[in-house]
């Protein structure tokens, strides 16, 4: 088993909601990255949960910056550190809105320049800290405050957009599997160049399920095949163990959907489409892992 660092880099306590999936991710990302790390955070839940000025709960340097600028700022920081001969990890830590919608231009630019940094998108599938407005990452049929009848369009496939940049390392993770996340962050930081990790972080108030089920919900997302854990290193894809197990014995998609208030009243057509997409995604990844395409 992986030896997890005992030291915590989040002082008690953030102002995150009880049972926050994003807070759990942040905890393990910082543990994996260690003290010689700078976090670049655009507007997202993480910029709020740090605490109230002039106090912060995060015990490493954090640079809070505008929505669209996280990856650009991290690029500059990384260049400055390397020019000084320092190996400091630069991590851009952004939510899904700041990645798939507003920050995608800066993200694409940084990956094209080959910046030596790690971009982490923790995805709660909506703009959480402003009260759950739909984002490009909101799945089909999910209700948010701006899509009260369920989102009519599908989730933007960010991973395929990032894949098109051919990064040396990219991975998906889920807050319900902290050890898997820890290993992936460690792996990513050991590789030079632009790295990307996409983490699914279930959000109890936004997805409308009880706070104690955050981890359970994350596991259901993986077990139902809605979220596939994998890593792609220099173009070769490996599906992670929890997803491999899920492929052998999947949990019905309804189990995941019905437990969340945001999918209440979802139409059968939307449900069929969600299932179709999950199958398609899984099939594509399996074929790639087997080296068929």
């Amino acid at each position, binding site marked *: 088993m992986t030896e997890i660092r005992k030291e915590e880099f989040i002082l008690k*306590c953030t*102002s995150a909601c009880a049972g926050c999936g994003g807070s759990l991710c942040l905890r393990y990302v910082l543990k994996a990255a260690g003290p010689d790390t700078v976090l670049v955070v655009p507007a997202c839940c993480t910029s709020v949960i740090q605490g109230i000025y*002039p106090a912060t709960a995060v015990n490493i340097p954090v640079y809070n910056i505008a929505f669209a600028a996280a990856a650009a700022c991290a690029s500059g920081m990384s260049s400055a550190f390397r020019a000084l001969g320092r190996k400091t990890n630069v991590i851009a830590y952004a939510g899904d809105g700041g990645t798939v919608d507003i920050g995608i231009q800066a993200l694409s630019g940084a990956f094209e320049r080959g910046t030596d940094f790690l971009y982490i998108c923790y995805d709660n599938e909506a703009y959480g800290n402003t009260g759950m407005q739909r984002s490009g990452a909101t799945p089909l049929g999910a209700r948010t405050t701006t899509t009260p009848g369920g989102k009519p369009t599908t989730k933007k496939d960010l991973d395929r957009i990032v894949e098109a940049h051919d990064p040396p390392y990219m991975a998906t993770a889920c807050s319900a599997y902290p050890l898997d996340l820890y290993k992936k962050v460690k792996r990513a930081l050991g590789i030079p160049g632009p790295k990307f990790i996409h983490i699914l972080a279930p959000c109890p108030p936004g997805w409308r399920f009880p706070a104690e089920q955050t*981890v359970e919900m994350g596991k259901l997302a993986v077990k139902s095949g809605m979220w596939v854990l994998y890593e792609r290193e220099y173009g070769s894809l490996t599906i992670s163990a929890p997803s491999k197990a899920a492929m052998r014995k999947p949990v019905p998609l309804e189990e995941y959907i019905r437990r969340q208030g945001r999918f209440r009243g979802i139409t059968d057509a939307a449900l069929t489409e969600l299932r179709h997409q999950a199958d398609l995604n899984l099939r594509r990844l399996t074929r790639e892992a087997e080296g068929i395409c």
Partner: protein
Amino acid sequence: MRERLAVSRPVEASSGRTGSWRTFRPVVDREVCNACGLCALYCPEAVIDDDLEIDLAFCKGCGICANECPKKAIEMIREDR
């Protein structure tokens, strides 16, 4: 030195003592607990230490520990306040 930037410093309780948010308090049955540590692993706030003692000054009472405990050794009991 005068600070020219708005810089926050890391301190404990930057958002106050979040234990006051709690509606349900986790109570561990030490007889049943086998010290597997999954509660500490999954705690989003890292308020469970190596000895699996829960820091009630900060625990928000989300109940993930009780939900994930394989031995069901943690019970969530309503706070009377």
